[in-house]
């Protein structure tokens, strides 16, 4: 296989994938090493959005770090804040009151609805289906209004405080949530039909980026991407945190393993979230909203794992007795999903790489101009499309 400059040696060519995508926290840049036809190595180069959060956390007090942790990812900010406050509460041996835990679950599920509708829209936009993008984002405004009424902000709602929550559910908000949820549930039935029956859409999702259950388990894939391949892994069920032990979640698992299965898992999880929200609102425990929290956290380590919309979110906090954390480690769910998809590419034919990458549905709206060409000898820059075209020709002749 020569790629324009005729050399047969294993050459490294750069696939420039768009550096920005709302669903993936880190814009990435893939690099494939090819030997003849098969891909022998695939790596990612992140860092476009690296803001040095873990180091800056060491020079901030616990409360300031909480506000920074909410801004790790704009779409699942509540989940990051919940994980961090649960960690700090474990360190300080403080238990947030039951009403606060229930409200945390409520806001987490509202955020899951907002994040899944967002991904549904962006996925459709990526497949060129703008009508679904417009409709799903229009309905998402309903859940954004609810979040704003409940917490005061549409995105980065900072409902969490160390030791509890700072927003309460009044009757007016309760009714607004219930009416909003009824409307959304009726709309989600419509989306379920679109995702499972619309021919034009299925052409772009069925059989794309398939991952078997065994592969998913071995590679440590998390969240809906794993549940789409049949892996029973949902932290809200396996390791219930906050009030998930009271408000039971039943697992949503699909066996398909391809992009369509992941769409279906996310839409089914929407139904699940509506049910939990209604349950939380029906039996919301009484009581205050926050527990007293010492300023200085005594020495120790704590780990929390939380189910973010995209998968398992891991937080490790270590304190040294002062009011500043000694070390904060955050592992977002996108890293293992991306690593496993990259690993999946190894051994595959070059022609299959477009399907596998499309599987994690990165958005290629690439301002590719911002990618620096690799100057090392033998490198050749293929555009994403050239690679896809190469794949098609490869199979035709």
């Amino acid at each position, binding site marked *: 296989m020569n790629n324009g400059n005729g050399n047969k040696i294993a050459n490294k060519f750069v696939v420039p994938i768009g550096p920005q995508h709302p669903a993936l926290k880190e814009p990435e840049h893939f690099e494939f090493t090819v030997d003849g036809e098969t891909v022998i190595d695939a790596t990612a180069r992140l860092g476009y959005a690296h803001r040095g959060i873990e180091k800056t956390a060491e020079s901030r007090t616990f409360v300031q770090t909480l506000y920074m942790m909410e801004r790790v990812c704009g779409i699942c900010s509540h989940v990051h804040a919940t994980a961090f406050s649960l960690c700090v509460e474990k360190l300080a041996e403080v238990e947030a009151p039951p009403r606060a835990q229930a409200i945390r679950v409520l806001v987490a599920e509202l955020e899951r609805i907002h994040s899944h509708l967002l991904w549904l829209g962006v996925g459709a936009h990526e*497949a*060129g*289906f703008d*009508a679904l993008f417009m*409709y799903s984002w*229009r309905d998402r405004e309903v859940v954004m209004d609810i979040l704003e009424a409940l917490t005061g902000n549409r995105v980065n709602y900072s409902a969490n405080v160390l030791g509890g929550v700072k927003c309460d559910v009044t009757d007016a908000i309760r009714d607004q949530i219930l009416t909003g949820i009824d409307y959304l549930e009726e709309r989600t039935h419509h989306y379920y039909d679109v995702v499972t029956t619309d021919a*034009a859409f299925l052409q772009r999702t069925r059989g794309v980026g398939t991952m078997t259950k065994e592969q998913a388990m071995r590679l440590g894939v998390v969240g809906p991407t794993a549940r789409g391949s049949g892996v029973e892994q949902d932290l809200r069920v396996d390791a219930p945190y906050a009030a998930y032990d009271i408000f039971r979640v039943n697992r949503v698992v699909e066996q398909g393993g391809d992009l369509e299965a992941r769409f279906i898992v996310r839409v089914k999880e929407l139904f699940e979230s509506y049910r939990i929200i209604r349950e939380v609102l029906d039996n919301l425990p009484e009581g205050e909203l926050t527990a007293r929290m010492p300023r200085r956290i005594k020495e120790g380590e704590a780990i929390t794992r939380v189910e973010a919309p995209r998968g398992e979110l891991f937080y490790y906090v270590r304190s040294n007795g002062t009011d500043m954390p000694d070390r904060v480690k955050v592992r977002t769910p996108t890293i293992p999903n991306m690593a496993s998809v990259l690993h999946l590419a190894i051994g595959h034919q070059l022609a299959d790489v477009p399907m596998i990458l499309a599987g994690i549905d990165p958005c290629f709206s690439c301002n590719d101009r911002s990618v620096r060409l690799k100057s090392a000898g033998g490198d050749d820059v293929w*555009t994403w*499309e050239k690679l896809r075209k190469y794949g098609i020709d490869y199979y035709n002749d």
Partner: protein
Amino acid sequence: MTELNPIIALMFFPGGIFVMLLGLLYVWINRKLRARLQNRVGPRWFQPIADLFKLLSKEEIIPEDANPTLFVVLPVLALAGVLTAALYVPILGMKAVHSVPGDLIITVYLLSLVTMCIGLAGANSTGRFSLVGVTRTLTQLFSYEAPFLLALLSPAIMAGTWQISEIVDYAGGRWLMFTHPISFIIAIVALMGKLEMPPFDAPEAETEIVGGALTEYNGRGLALFKLSHAAEMVIGFALVTALFMGGTTNPLLWAVQTLVLLLVVTLIEVLMARMRIDQTVGLWWRYGSVLAIVQIIVLVVWQRIVL
């Protein structure tokens, strides 16, 4: 129509300015309809004109490794091609300005001249994305061109000539839409391919290859290309209405017919997701061409039996 002074015909009435303005109007209707179908408000009526003037007043950047003359000439060529095609097609229900034997073929190839110019422009501007846009535009051109021509041939075969005015006379009374259903549908869908409307907008898929073949173009060049695209839309609709929907009638009926066509096309556009380039090519070669050929055979056989 020949009594109209040729210069005026070319510059103003059925030719240049009128077609461009009508094209801009149709582009506005298309965008407004698409927005309304997507539950949005959509642009104001003068939006395409404002876009046009803004583009004309912007700085022109020519990539240094592109051939400057070609970079500047191609948009003009594309617009010229479309405007000459406008002369052969009966617009606004009136007879075409010129009528030359075999002008059906001329019109179709003048229309595909625009796509060629876009392809050349993309290749000339050597950006990675424009190169990919070019490959997609041209592969799509070769896929829908054959069925489009075959679909337009069926009325020509019935009328027994290649001259649009004669075909239009033949098609005057009869609504060929019902007697040639397959080629009517293929003509419309091929028209969508030519105008690169979704589901055939792979060549300028904003989420995949940024701007497609015209990524490098800006200012004047882009304005001219957008104008030729708008004019192409008008001429395409005019051609299909003339051949399939009962030839030249009064302007009002012509306007209604083309608007109905525009509504149908926009509906399809909103409902469909974008098809990958290999799926579009597959669709055209597997179904488009086969159906068109079947239609032609049926016509020829039927003509032989009846006449």
